[in-house]
């Protein structure tokens, strides 16, 4: 009875090209590479505008992940060679392993700067929920970090946990958000353990009690929302509030956090996963403008 094992946690990778920009006229082409624990992005900018990006899963080898992400973005663009880059900044968990980067900046600074770009300068509080980390960041109007908090030694409540869970229930990760609202009656109470490792036993026992998959999902999303919120609560929310990282796409968790915060989160057309890489590319652009770019030889 060998079934084809489907991997429900595999969120879709994507790349994109901005059709409106002719990069050949650009003064500076800068690149930001964000190698996260789960995903890697490359954002290519022409004079501070996004030209193209690539967003894919991180492999077990981050130098390659960086290269692949860049290649993915260049593929979207089609006609640019790596040599055209004026400056490249690495960020994220694997930032020191980006072989072609000129410099690295922490993902905390990059996400704040990126959020400032994706959402606009009104952003003061940024929540980044990625694969392993939850970060609550406060920043000024320039996107400079003024304060931040990170989760401690437990991965509960992070994107990776959601991946494991979606796989377990056999619900594709993109559908998790909507499915978590498809149940009748009252919202079930949060599960008690958001531990990634123990999620399975908890889910099993709930399903056995007669819960539907959707209810289990709702209970899990709620628990994750509680966990994430506790970090946000500790730093305090100053408006405007924006969310970056992959979890921003999961309304099952996000829509359960927002009522607690009490204000709306900002909206963007951009892919929230590219915030870090976009911030990095922007820093590169600023450096180039100040004449502190790469010394070409």
């Amino acid at each position, binding site marked *: 009875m060998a079934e084809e094992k489907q991997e429900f946690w595999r969120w879709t990778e994507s790349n994109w090209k901005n059709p409106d920009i002719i990069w050949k006229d650009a003064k500076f082409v800068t690149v930001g590479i964000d190698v996260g624990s789960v995903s890697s992005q490359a954002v290519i900018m022409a004079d501070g505008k996004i030209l193209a990006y690539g967003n894919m899963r991180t492999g077990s080898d981050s130098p390659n992940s960086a290269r692949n992400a860049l290649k993915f973005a260049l593929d979207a663009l089609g006609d640019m060679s790596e040599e055209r880059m004026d400056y490249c900044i690495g960020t994220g968990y694997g930032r020191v392993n980006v072989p072609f980067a000129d410099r690295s900046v922490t993902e905390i600074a990059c996400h704040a700067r990126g959020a400032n770009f994706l959402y606009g300068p009104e952003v003061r509080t940024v929540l980044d929920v990625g694969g392993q980390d939850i970060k609550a960041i406060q920043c000024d109007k320039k996107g400079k970090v003024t304060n931040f908090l990170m989760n401690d030694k437990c991965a509960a409540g992070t994107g990776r946990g959601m991946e494991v869970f979606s796989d377990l229930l056999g619900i594709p990760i993109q559908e998790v958000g909507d499915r978590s609202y498809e149940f009748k009656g009252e919202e079930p109470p949060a599960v*008690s353990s958001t531990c990634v490792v123990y999620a399975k036993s908890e889910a099993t026992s709930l399903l056995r009690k007669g819960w539907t998959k959707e209810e289990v999902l709702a209970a899990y999303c709620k628990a994750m929302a509680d966990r994430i919120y*506790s970090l946000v*609560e*500790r730093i*305090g929310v100053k408006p405007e509030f924006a969310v970056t990282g992959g979890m921003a796409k999961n309304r099952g968790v996000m829509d359960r956090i927002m009522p607690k915060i009490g204000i709306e989160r900002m909206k963007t057309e951009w892919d929230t996963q590219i915030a870090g890489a976009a911030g990095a590319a922007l820093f590169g652009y600023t450096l180039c403008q100040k004449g502190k770019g790469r010394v070409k030889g």
Partner: protein
Amino acid sequence: MAKYPTEPLKCWPKAKELRQQFYRNFSEAKEKGGIRWMGSAWAPDAVVRGLGKDVYSVTGEPYGASCAFDKPLSAKFLSAAENFGFARDLCAYMRNYWGSILCNEYALDKGKFPKADFAWSQHICCSHAKWYQNACELEGGNVPLFCVDVGAGAYPPFEPEMYPHRIRYVADQMMDGIEWMQKVTGREYNDELFLEAVWNDMRLTSKWAEICMLNRATPAPLDEKTIYSLYVFGVLEQSNAEFADFYDELYDEVKDRAARGIAAVANEKARLMTDTQPPWGFLNIYRYMEKWGAVSVGSLYTFGLAGTWLYDEEKHDLIPRAMPDKKPATREEGCMMLADWHLSKPEYQHFYHPEYKTKMMDAIAKNWKCDGVILHYNRGCEGLTVGIAENRLGLLERGNKVMAYEGNMGDEREFDETATINRLSIFLESLGLKIED
């Protein structure tokens, strides 16, 4: 089939009324023109009594426990304390208390949190003085604080003698405290009231120990879940005359129960003892044990926090400490007597060495005829859990059956009910018991 006859406690309604009155007094103190103070359950409250008959306290630990019973409220308090920046592993009572101030909400009648005129406490666990130091600061920084350090060494027989300079140290701080109280309240100190209070303190704590002695009977006339509602008087205010009188009454009733063979739990088959505060929001675990015929008959915690005992090395027994021959006559004598009395508190001894506590616990296990010991590794209280892992080893070595579970007296997030029930079942089964449905 029930093995033993059982009856409700006659003085139960009175206990309830006394407790409620106590909490009400604190919130209404101002309307009566009285004085309000805050401090620990272990604070020498007799000293404050010299300020007059209208001084009322909120006692931090029982207050923290009261919060814990209301889980949503407690969750709110705890998160307020965390948001202020306090670590989650700090004393759970303390965090509930600070949370109440931060939210300005009194858990006992849902009104505003009554601001105290001053704080008066003692210090032995790392948190006691810091608790009220921070509480004063959170109240706006204008509540004065005085703490008496009682970390002056263990009491005999755990030390060869009670060195005079140790009693002096504690008594002198009380003397200073009296001066300080007069200054911060502007009131004249009444030594007579004080001396009376010292006597009441000794009377109450010694009587409580006598009451606990009665629980040596089989079947036990009191179970620990009931004890929790009764020992609290010795925790709320030890020098309270009304409370001391109540214990006299209680003593008579329990004595009568023991004589007539009235059980607290009808199907008592095995006797247990526990340690440290229970997870207050989950006292139903005691009910669960009863289903197995297992009755917890007490603990060093309930016996020793409200009672004064001396450990007898030779008999390997805990003996209620006898009242002094005569009442103190002067302020200084009162302070010396009170200091000496307090320093002998069983619950102070383990701060110096776990071995002392192991001895006292083993004495309870043997003399109260316990079949097993359940230790609560209480994440909410470092003070009472200090050395607990060594107590476990020491009790095992002395032939006791011991079980430990992790939990928290005041932070429900750290208590796993299912896992604990599972563990309890394994343990009770290993004692040869079987659950009755």
